[in-house]
């Protein structure tokens, strides 16, 4: 079965999820659990570092969709960073760059939270 792992850390009030491997229908519930955990403890500033993400399917993308609204309602956001071109292509195909802040680097994503600028969905980098 496909491998998928999540490791979690907190830097400057921002929670970073590093996701590794294949995020598909089989492994999506793991990410769901991770988001649920963060929301339960009222952590709404979330960066998902996709450095070691080798594949994402629509079920995986759906998990982001399922949580982003609640997170934004609480003045937070789910930002994505360090995507490989292959993974970005899938996000792009499904029109996600319009809906999410996708940044080249994790620190850049964290800094976005530290800037006092309001979050404008759809302000994503190309």
């Amino acid at each position, binding site marked *: 079965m496909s491998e998928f792992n999540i490791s979690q850390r907190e830097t400057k009030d921002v929670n970073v999820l590093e996701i590794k491997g294949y995020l*598909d*229908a*089989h492994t*999506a*519930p793991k990410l*769901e659990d991770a988001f649920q955990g963060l929301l339960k403890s009222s952590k709404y500033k979330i960066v998902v570092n996709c450095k070691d993400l080798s594949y994402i*399917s*629509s*079920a*995986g*993308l*759906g*998990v*982001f*969709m*399922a949580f982003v*609204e609640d997170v934004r309602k609480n003045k937070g956001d789910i930002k994505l960073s360090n995507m490989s071109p292959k993974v970005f*292509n*899938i996000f792009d*195909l*499904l*029109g*996600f760059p*319009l*809906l999410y802040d996708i940044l080249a680097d994790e620190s850049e994503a964290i800094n976005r939270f530290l800037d006092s600028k309001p979050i404008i969905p759809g302000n994503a980098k190309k």
Partner: protein
Amino acid sequence: MSTSNKKSSPHRKSSPRKKSSPRKKSRPARSAASAPPPAKSYASYFEHTALFEFSKVINSSLDPQFVYSHILLTIMGKILSSKGMVALAGSGKEVKVEAAKGFSQSLIGKGVVVEATPSNLFDISVVDADRYPWVEFFQQAGVAILLPMVMADRLIGFLGFGERFSPQPLEDQQRTYLQSLANISATAIEKSRTLEETKQVNRKLDRKIQEMNTLFELGKEFGSLLDPEKLVRLLVFSLLGQVGVNRYLIALRGGSDMRVVASKLDGPVPQGELLMSLANLKGPTRVSEYIIKDSIDPRNRLNAAGLHVIVPMQLQGENRGLILLGEKLSKEPFTDLDLEFFSSLANLAIISLENARLFKEAIEKQKLEDELLIAREIQKGLLPSVLPDIPGIDIAATNISSRQVGGDYYDVIPIEGERFIIAIGDVSGKGPPAALLMANLQATIRALVPLNIGLSELTGKVNSLLCPNTGGSKFVTFFWGIYDPKDRSLSFVNAGHNYPLLVRPRGKVDRLDVGGMILGIMEPPAPYEQGIVTLTTGDMLVLFTDGVTEAMDKNAVEYGEGRLESLVSAHLASNAEEMVDLIHEDILLHSKGTSQSDDITMMILKAV
């Protein structure tokens, strides 16, 4: 591309120079850095080189906007105009503005139908407006010069420019030169457009492949999931992820109802009747295109709930469920391809959901069977396999379990003083809980009997011990007695059980009814009473459970105590074993054509 690049390259390119003799001449002149070349040939040389460079630059880029920009800037510089636009012909006859410099950006995307056009550069102010009425569009936009781009007799589009700063009219040579630029531009634009189209086709293909992957992956995953909740969750994730929607409702059909199993909506969640009115849809449908077939118009309520698409989940031509989706977060409309994808996904999901349902049903049935088997095992283990010999008594007993297994119990236990406990009971309920309570009762009896206290008090203690284990919701009807062969006496307590019948040869039937309330409910208001009878030879004591007297025939008529009494009375000559068989056969005869609904248990003691 920078201009310095353009300047530095001509010397490396030799082929354009070889063709004309003036250039050959100019070479030694230039190397000698003396007499300048004739002005005209120098200009010609420069123009050829520039043309070549122009071609190289616009053909080296795959970005249409860059190509347009370079074409416009080059020509605007050439003719001294501050405004330029690119207008391109689509698949029809309409020509649309694609890029503009100096002109209003609001022109972009606007267009005009062009039936016929002059094939070379022309000034709008002098063109025959009756013949070419469409030039008005360009004129109004502020275009003074139009440069048609034609490739193989096909109009690719126009390059349009505003008024020139120079009062000098364009010379023929300049016009030819500009036309060359236009022709080169046409080729480059066509190329970049083809490429753009290819890219888009590729992207569509990529998306299709991605959809296929999704379906394939879900097919695999759905197949291995048997939990409907997880299945629905996965379906939701895939829908949200694939199309970028955030509002949904998933309903599954159960009989004549549609049950909402998952939803995220802002307004009220549509329910049964409304959803059922959508059950006749044959395929995925946009709410805006929904055609009302009966009195219910679901559109307003669906719109209120923010739902835009209805996707039936079909199995063997029947709608087993519905997926309703809100709009895309990108606000883009749902394409036909989207709807096709939803349909595939819905039909894939419903197969698995249906399988999961059937599997669950099968498991539950199996679980029930297993439970019954356990109950039967417990019951069989508790009932005595061999009855002890009692002096002066011919004894026989039977227990015939119904399919559901009740909690019938009987026992014969030898006790101190060569006496015997004779017991029969019926635990309320069926299956393992009843069997376990029965085991509890038996253990209690066997633990208490050695205390050697009176039967009445003993019954009270059995009840006290049983009560905490029933939680007040279960009870036991129980009859027990102590038979002493020495004086043939049977002292007994009947705790709410069917009265055992003592049938005597001389016609008198005693019902052993002395005792008290049933066991397991509460502490009785009064102690259990104890009765006593003495057996004489030929007496037949019939102990039984309600499965005997309440056995029903096809018309729900019970077998009844009267029939039992008559049967026993008529066959007092039989031994105990024969009597058990006789009664059983008679019950079977009575309930012929029905299935046994309760355990049938009886014990016969014949005084011999």
